[in-house]
């Protein structure tokens, strides 16, 4: 659990002159204030729920966000158990996703060992599977010796990483300024209607995933629709967009 007071009233047990002693002697633990600071400067405390449990889940965001590194998250033997069953939740989340071929994952592990960062590891994983399977994220966490919460937190922060499987055709509609001015919202809507799924989701038959991207940088061709990694269509109106989807569908399901 998070501690902001450097170990509840342990002052006196630290050897004089040590770095921690210097920090602790500046804190009045009874009044929960920092000594020799302007009035009103206090210490952070953790909020408790009515039943006495801490609300903090130790997600470590505050620790990382602190501009002066004054928060440290440490293991605390008082709270041995997490407020939820990790194994159960993990198993439930894993069951929601299809099995993945772990042989393909060796490449990601190899790259991590070469010293690639977390985000690079995600990119390689997504190139391999088309999305970031939960199992892969757990493997990455294990390999890099990071808490799963941290790995998942980073994966969910960046809009380019997908946490659910994608369809055969990933349709990206550019929503940059030039495309917006040229009528991209109408295009997205037309495709969403044609596919009968909202933006960000995959059709039930697993053929199409509809996404929006912020700018593909082909502004002269606005509005732009990209299918897969490289098939770019320029100057697409709602009517052309519907036709495009029908054409792609026909390729797959000859009716």
């Amino acid at each position, binding site marked *: 659990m998070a501690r902001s007071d450097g170990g509840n009233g342990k002052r006196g047990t630290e050897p004089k002159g040590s770095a921690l002693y210097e920090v602790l002697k500046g804190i009045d633990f009874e009044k929960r204030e920092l000594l020799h600071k302007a009035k009103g400067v206090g210490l952070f405390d953790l909020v408790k729920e009515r039943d006495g449990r801490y609300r903090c889940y130790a997600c470590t*965001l505050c620790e*990382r*966000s*602190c*501009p*002066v590194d004054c928060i440290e998250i440490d293991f605390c033997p008082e709270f041995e158990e997490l407020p939820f069953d990790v194994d159960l939740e993990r198993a439930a989340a894993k069951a929601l996703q299809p099995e993945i071929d772990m042989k393909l994952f060796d490449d990601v592990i190899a790259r991590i060992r070469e010293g690639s*960062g*977390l*985000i*690079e590891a*995600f*990119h390689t994983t997504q190139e391999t599977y088309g999305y970031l399977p939960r199992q892969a994220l757990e493997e990455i966490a294990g390999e890099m010796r990071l808490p799963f919460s941290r790995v998942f*937190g*980073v994966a969910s*922060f*960046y*809009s*380019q*990483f997908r946490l659910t499987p994608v369809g055969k055709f990933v349709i990206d509609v550019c*929503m*940059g*300024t*030039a*495309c*917006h*001015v*040229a*009528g991209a919202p*109408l295009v997205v*809507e*037309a495709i969403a*209607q*044609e596919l009968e799924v909202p933006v960000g989701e995959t059709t039930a038959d697993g053929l199409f995933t509809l996404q929006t*991207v*912020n*700018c*593909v*940088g*082909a*502004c*002269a*061709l*606005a509005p*732009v629709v990209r299918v897969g*990694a490289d098939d*770019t*269509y*320029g100057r697409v*109106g*709602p*009517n052309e967009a*519907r036709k495009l989807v029908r054409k792609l569908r026909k390729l797959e399901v000859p009716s």
Partner: protein
Amino acid sequence: MSPRTSGNGKDARKASAATAAGKRLGRIEQALKKAADKSAYIAGDDKAEIRICAGTACHASGRVALREALEKDLAARGLSDKIAVVETGCHGFCEEGPILVVRPEGLFYPRLKPKDIAEIVETSVVGDGVVERLLYKHPQTGEALAHERDIPFYSLQQRIVLSLNGKIDPYSIDDYLAHGGYTGLARVLAQDDPEAVIDEVERSGLRGRGGAGFPTGKKWRFCRANPGDVHYVICNADEGDPGAFMDRSVLEGNPHAVIEGMVIAAFAIGRGVGPVSGYVYVRHEYPFAVERLRNALVQARERGLLGEDILGSGFDFDIRINQGAGAFVCGESTALTLSIEGHRGMPRGKHIRTVAHGLRGEPTNLNNVESYANVPWIVLNGAGALAAKGTATSKGTKIFSLTGKVVNGGLVEVPMGATLRHVIFDIGGGMLPGREFKAVQLGGPSGGCLPAESLDTEIDFESLTAAGAMMGSGGMVVVDDTTCMVDFAKFFLKFTAEESCGKCVPCRVGTTRMLEILERITAGEGTTADIERLERLADDVIEGSLCQLGGSAPNPVLTTLRYFRDEVMEHVVNRRCPARVCRPLIRYTIDKDACTGCHVCFGACPTAAISGERKQAHIIDQKLCIKCDTCRQVCKFDAIPVETGVLAVAEGRQQ
């Protein structure tokens, strides 16, 4: 020791220092000469070659098929050995892609199809004529222009950073070396005086091209002065602004210029201080830029221009590529460094600057792609040459990506101080036929919209900020009377609200609340109190946000309220959308006199809201109409006018 001998000693020391410097210069010049591969093909303006633009826009409009057709055709004629085909970086004239240029004449062929190739090769490569029908036509006079140099879009620009774009093959380091590449670096390494480099850059008046406009030389000096185990030099190529693609084009067209700029920066910051390490943080959405940069880094390492002991000078520096993952906020310096470390890209307070405490807590120098690409030019041509261009406070040139409803969209590099009118009307060729200029949006989601009255504003950092917009990274989107300014402001706010990292409340909650108010206004449910609320909230968001994403997020709304208040009031008071965009305020009708009953709209309507017999005027069922604009776009007779006013709202509500 007598004064005389001591004098001699000094002279001797000076002389030996001079010879040492001379030796060093000679050694580095030799190393640079050796770096070039003499057998490689060098692209040149006076050679018989065909250049195909391989920028993203031309790629999307079909350059691969064009190249294949060209190579096939040349092979069939047995010309493959005589005529070189060079795939260059972005020429900048993206509106006209795919582009092909025939050298040495410099014939410019836009918007080509593979079937046009045979005719071009026959006439312009084998013969010495021009294919009149394929030439670029002057947007006003309609006159066919054969040569690149005659086209106003090119001839009115002053290209420094883009000077080699479209001339060299970005995959060939020899092209860059043959065009004077890395000579600036060699000069810097030979002189071996990092402070002098910083002085030079500072004197040139170069300011950060990423948007904020911080003096580059000053930043280097601060970074050098800060102690650390290692100094980091990072290139910010996370061009997140929608509608901006300058950095992408520079990286795609001339990656070595950026690398050279970074090595010079690293030398200026780290020489004699400690080790330096480099990163390029580039968007994952730019696959070509990443690929070409990666290739350029490998080449530079092979030729001894990067890595250990660069050009035998004893200076070490290497660059790694780090790819982003679609987070706009990662363009912010502190978020960017966190993202490289593998964290969520959430900015921190700026009371500790990145130059002191950046990547992994070490002093970090972060510049934009365009800033680095300016550096080799400054070293070669001197600070005075750059300082001679531009205005009193902003020096040099700036690249803008001109897009939207202009005739000639693309990359425009002009000196600071050029007017918006010059860029949009002279270079950009003005508005599309029959359309009227309404506003120009500068600086992406952090900038603002300027009206026609501001067209004579001279572009520099200060004047744009004073007008309520900002330089930003250089996106310039021109809109006409079919764009609703309230809807446009809503678009930007929606973008920033989605991209807010969520760390601080004013930005996370404030932008969302502002978005809700704008949604009310565009739905015809706004009140005048909403406008006041919007202005007050905007001030709070600007004041309270931790980083510049929130600090500039309300700018599009504020400029809209400042310059287009009438249009906003029209939404609020009269429930009308003058541009006929906001759906709850408009309805589609059919002009009975103009409609010929051709049945095209009937077939195109996705909800079967249009009925009517062939050759008789059709009717739109307002209850079924989803206002998707399809019918209006397919109608060849302009028979589907859009109405706006109280009536439309009343009917819309009933639905």
